[in-house]
């Protein structure tokens, strides 16, 4: 009897009793579904928890030029392209991106011209920086007053600036509705807004920030220093992997991507306690499910005594009979596992949709769950299969 025959007989044995199959698999379905949903929701919840704590850090990717020593000892370097934000904007998972650079103003002092200051002008050493319009979104800047410059200002190289809040204090600027100016050397720049806070690059709060185009035009800025990327939740690792290639397709190795560590360890600990309880419940229902399979398979063996006897009479050995019932119960377990895994995944996704979470599920879990069901079925089937194998063929003639 070939394996194919054995499986064929087992499938027929299960398939000819569909209503019984449904009842038998119920326990396994519930158990596997509980396990998958518990683990899935655990992973999902862990993801949400760590996202809540780490959302700011977990969504930041920074690209900077790196150095590489060439084979002949010379140091290769690369420059970030001006259009890096546009290139990165095409990547999936990138919410915003912008370039940043400090601007060398050649020692010119930055002077505020307060309209109402009785004491005259305030003079301070204030750093000057340049940023593309997208940078403000990428670093999570929020405005205290006024507005940010836009790509139009950038393209026209307009002499506009936004001030970090500390820079604004030093320069004596606190309102922008009267379009105050600051002077860098002898050049006047119109202040369009004041930034109240940023998530990253807190140096911006101390600086006078002008558009990239303005810095290029006015101060001959050669290249951006860094690209700040804000990604969608959970996309940082992926974006980090792709960003260098997107920015510098010819020489991605000459760029360094600063990527947050993958989420996980924190959330795992937080949810471990909760998971323990549900895993215990899932395990319990699996045990019950296994007992259910064992019970029904045993019942099935008793019911099919005449079939077993007949098979034995026409030449089936004990191992054939045992094998058939073993494969049947394994099949029942596998079917229960498949349905249960599907139900567990659906539950995870359903709950995630309702709670507006991002469902996270280890794909290995979805594969392992049906196999676990099959193993449970096989284990549950051992005793009934052994019982079936001990049935004497005489039974076939006696019963019926």
């Amino acid at each position, binding site marked *: *009897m*070939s394996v194919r*025959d054995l499986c064929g*007989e087992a499938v*027929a044995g299960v398939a*000819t009793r569909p209503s019984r199959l449904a009842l038998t698999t119920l326990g396994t379905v519930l158990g596997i579904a509980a396990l998958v949903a518990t683990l899935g929701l655990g992973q999902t919840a862990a993801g949400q928890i760590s996202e809540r704590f780490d959302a700011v850090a977990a969504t930041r990717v920074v690209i900077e030029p790196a150095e590489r020593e060439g084979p002949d000892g010379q140091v290769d370097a690369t420059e970030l392209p001006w259009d890096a934000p546009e290139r990165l904007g095409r990547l999936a998972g990138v919410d915003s991106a912008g370039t940043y650079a400090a601007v060398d103003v050649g020692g010119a002092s930055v002077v505020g011209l307060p309209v109402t200051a009785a004491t005259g002008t305030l003079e301070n050493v204030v750093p000057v920086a340049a940023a593309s319009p997208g940078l403000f979104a990428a670093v999570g800047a929020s405005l205290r007053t006024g507005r940010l410059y836009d790509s139009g200002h950038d393209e026209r190289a307009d002499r506009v600036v936004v001030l970090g809040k500390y820079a604004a204090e030093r320069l004596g600027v606190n309102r922008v509705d009267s379009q105050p100016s600051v002077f860098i050397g002898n050049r006047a720049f119109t202040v369009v807004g004041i930034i109240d806070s940023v998530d990253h690059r807190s140096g911006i709060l101390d600086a006078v920030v002008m558009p990239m185009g303005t810095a290029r035009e006015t101060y001959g800025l050669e290249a951006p220093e860094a690209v700040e990327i804000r990604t969608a939740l959970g996309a940082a690792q992926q974006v980090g992997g792709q960003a260098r290639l997107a920015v510098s397709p010819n020489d991605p190795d000459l760029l360094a991507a600063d990527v947050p560590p993958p989420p996980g360890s924190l959330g795992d600990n937080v949810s471990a306690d909760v998971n323990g309880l549900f895993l215990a419940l899932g395990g319990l229902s699996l045990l019950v499910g296994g007992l259910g399979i064992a019970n029904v398979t045993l019942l099935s063996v008793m019911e099919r005594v*005449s*079939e077993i*006897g*007949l*098979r*034995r*009479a*026409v*030449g*089936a*050995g*004990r191992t*054939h009979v045992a094998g058939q019932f073993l494969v049947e119960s394994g099949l029942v377990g596998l079917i229960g596992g498949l349905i249960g895994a599907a139900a567990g995944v659906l539950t995870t996704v359903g709950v995630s949709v309702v709670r507006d979470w991002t469902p996270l599920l280890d794909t290995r879990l979805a594969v392992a769950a049906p196999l676990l069901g099959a193993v449970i079925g096989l284990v549950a089937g051992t005793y009934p299969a052994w019982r079936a194998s001990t049935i*004497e*063929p*005489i039974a*076939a*003639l*006696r*019963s*019926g």
Partner: protein
Amino acid sequence: MTPVVEMDGIGRTFTGPPPVEAIRTVDLTLEQGEYLSIVGPSGSGKSTLLHLLGLLDRPTGGVYRLDGIDVRTLSERRRTRLRGERIGFVFQAFHLLPRRTVLENVELAMMYLRVPRRERTARARATIDRVGLAHRCDFDPLTLSGGERQRVAVARALTSEPSLLLADEPTGNLDSENAASVLDLFDELHAEGLTLAVITHDDAVSRRAQRRVRIVDGVLA
């Protein structure tokens, strides 16, 4: 030619309590092509004799040679194999698998004899045709009449080309018309040279056989 069945002083005692001597001393020889009926009232030991003949049970005494093979010393595995290859069973209750087609039922025995799949189907179709049920190949046995079911069972028993066809009350569940169709089939198979042993309590059935033996209280009369 070697006789199909040679039983020499066969006995079968069931260990008690109390011990029962179902078969005392049976000497029985069945030549190739013979059509034997074994009659006896219930409790006479005819079922036990059938089990012994069909290698479903081991005698507690005596010698049994099937096709010249001494089966007393065979291992369980060898006995099972010999049974599958050399003996075809027909039961009173048909014992067809429900919700499997007639063809699948007839193929069943060959599966355990490791007949290749393609050959199995061909042989099964030929045998089903032989018992006159070619048009019923894809039917569920539950939809067939009793006589048709028993003919399917005969077809199943014939696929292994057995040395001996053992029938246990083959007409017990059939009305007279269906019983006649099955007995006619037995006659035809006998005419083709098949060795048959039919166990029955029904004189009308046993009279169809070429040779009759009566068993009473575990002894052939």
